[in-house]
């Protein structure tokens, strides 16, 4: 790119700022709705900074809920702490003022219907097994395809690649029937056991990585009498840590987000993952916007945090997944 003149730079910043605001708006809406009081959620004008109505009473600020207007006076119901009391008062309409107020009631109320900790635990169990399974199986297979010379490995590699073209919908029904026959429906087995059988894409990534490691290193280890399994465990695994991090991270996120799998295989509510739990919650309580946003926030937050802690690996992974073409 040519060096930009200062007014051009300014224009670029202007466009970027406008676009960033546009892209950030849904997040702002998500967060602010999740901490808004009910009467403000579907207000005519969205306030991104959550506010709630208050009255002044003997030097004390009381949060209120506006009821009806009677004879020019506003009837309000008083909150004590976060609890709505029976107490009502008639006040001057001007006395009711909005103040900035973050309400956690959406979270606490949603927890009564939405067993977040249960779903989180279920999701984390599946994620942990899937990450372990994928890293183990893909690195073993990648080693077999990249570091052990044997006839047929190229053929196997191309067969593996060609399976990536196959949409999951083709195998979905027979796999469902197979797992049903095994008695695995309504368990996490269909969501975890297959991860121990390799994933074409991640195996491909690791194979490319292993091929970039000099073969001299392997030969030296072999001459020293190290077995193949030893080379895999003591040389390749430590050397491929950055690639394994990408595989682990993306497997984790894939399992965290997976919807179709749990939808097909999990029946009991207490076995639900966050994805399926939130979707079902939306079906039942979708009209309660505050609670929906609260739970969506809680589901999103860990992934955003994960992104900030693993930014390099994350971006690297996105690029790698694009470069495979």
């Amino acid at each position: 790119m040519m060096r930009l003149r200062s007014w051009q730079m300014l224009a670029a910043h202007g466009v970027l700022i406008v676009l960033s605001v546009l892209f950030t708006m849904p997040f702002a809406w998500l967060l602010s709705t999740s901490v808004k009081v009910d009467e403000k959620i579907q207000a005519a004008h969205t306030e991104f900074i959550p506010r709630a109505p208050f009255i002044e009473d003997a030097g004390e600020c009381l949060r209120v809920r506006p009821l009806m207007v009677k004879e020019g006076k506003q009837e309000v119901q008083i909150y004590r702490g976060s609890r709505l009391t029976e107490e009502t008062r008639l006040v001057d309409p001007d006395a009711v003022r909005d103040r900035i107020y973050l309400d956690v009631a959406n979270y606490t109320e949603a927890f009564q219907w939405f067993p977040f900790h249960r779903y989180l635990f279920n999701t984390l169990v599946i994620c942990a097994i899937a990450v372990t399974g994928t890293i183990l199986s893909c690195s073993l297979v990648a080693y077999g395809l990249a570091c052990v010379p044997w006839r047929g490995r190229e053929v196997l590699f191309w067969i593996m690649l060609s399976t990536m073209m196959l949409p999951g919908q083709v195998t979905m029904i027979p796999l469902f029937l197979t797992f049903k026959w095994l008695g695995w429906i309504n368990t996490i087995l269909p969501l975890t056991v297959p991860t121990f059988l390799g994933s074409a894409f991640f195996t491909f990534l690791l194979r490319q990585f292993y091929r970039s490691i000099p073969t001299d290193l392997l030969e030296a280890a072999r001459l020293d009498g190290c077995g193949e399994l030893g080379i895999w465990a003591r040389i390749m695994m430590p050397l491929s840590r950055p690639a394994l991090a990408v595989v682990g991270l993306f497997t984790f996120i894939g399992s965290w987000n997976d919807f179709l799998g749990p939808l097909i295989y999990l029946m009991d509510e207490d076995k639900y993952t966050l994805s399926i739990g939130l979707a079902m919650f939306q079906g039942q309580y979708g009209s309660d916007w505050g609670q929906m946003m609260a739970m969506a926030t809680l589901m999103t937050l860990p992934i955003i945090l994960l992104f900030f802690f693993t930014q390099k690996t994350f971006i690297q992974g996105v690029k790698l997944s694009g470069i495979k073409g």
Partner: protein
Amino acid sequence: MNGRPHSHRWPVGVAFCLPLLVGLCVLTIFPVGASFYFSLTDYPIFDPPHWRGLGNYAELLRDPRFYLSIWNTFYFAIFAVPLGMVVGLMLAMLLNLKVRGMAFYRTMFFLPSIVPLIATCVLWNQILNPQFGLLNEFLRFIGLPEAWIPGWLVDERWSKPGLVLMSLWGCGGGMVLYLAALQDVPQELHDSAAIDGATAWHRFRHITLPMISPILLFTLVMGMIGTMQYFAQAYVMTAGGPWDSTLFYALNLFNTAFTEYRLGYASAMAWIMFAIILSVTLAMMKLSNRFVYYHS
């Protein structure tokens, strides 16, 4: 390679590849065969499959919902994929101007693409709400007359555009790819072209675009394959409605299999999906030979 014949090593190689070999058999080859067989049968889940020959495929060709779901899917793909690419590329090019704070902007544009899918659905269900949603509030704010305010997911004319908008919010994933490709375009090419008097547009058209065409093709193909399988958003947000306007192919397939329990019919749909994906991909690869430039 190392003096020892390959054949001595094959037990070791096969042993390492055992997970893949088992996986291929159990998770791919067997299910693919079974699926093809089911597609030729009538298979209501609780009774054994019963031979129907090409009956399912013949029925599909007469099924208006099948055509409707193909139409909905193509409508969505034709807008969502190219628009996502254009917006992603524009963002990437803006970021590639090397303005200060690039890392910050990049994060802002990238974050939406990693929000968990179902959380995105829940969020956008409210953003697209015709009365109280953020989007319509914005449209009213900029002064659009009430008659022009779309009903989004409750209006069959606007439900697909609404989902397209939602998908555009996640175009940051593509942006990261384009940005990486743009940064690989050699600066000398731009500099020497500029000295020869090439305008910014010409440099974009004849240097940038050819240099990043492989990644554009890749995202185009992956995007097309992805939209053929577009499912969760429609399942969670619209359940195919209103008036089947968001009955996408994969949703129709899922419903046929898991709510109507017509496993044979659904298998036939899966095979047609595979055929469509394969032919669209091959067609794009073929066409791309003329447009895509591989410099390595």
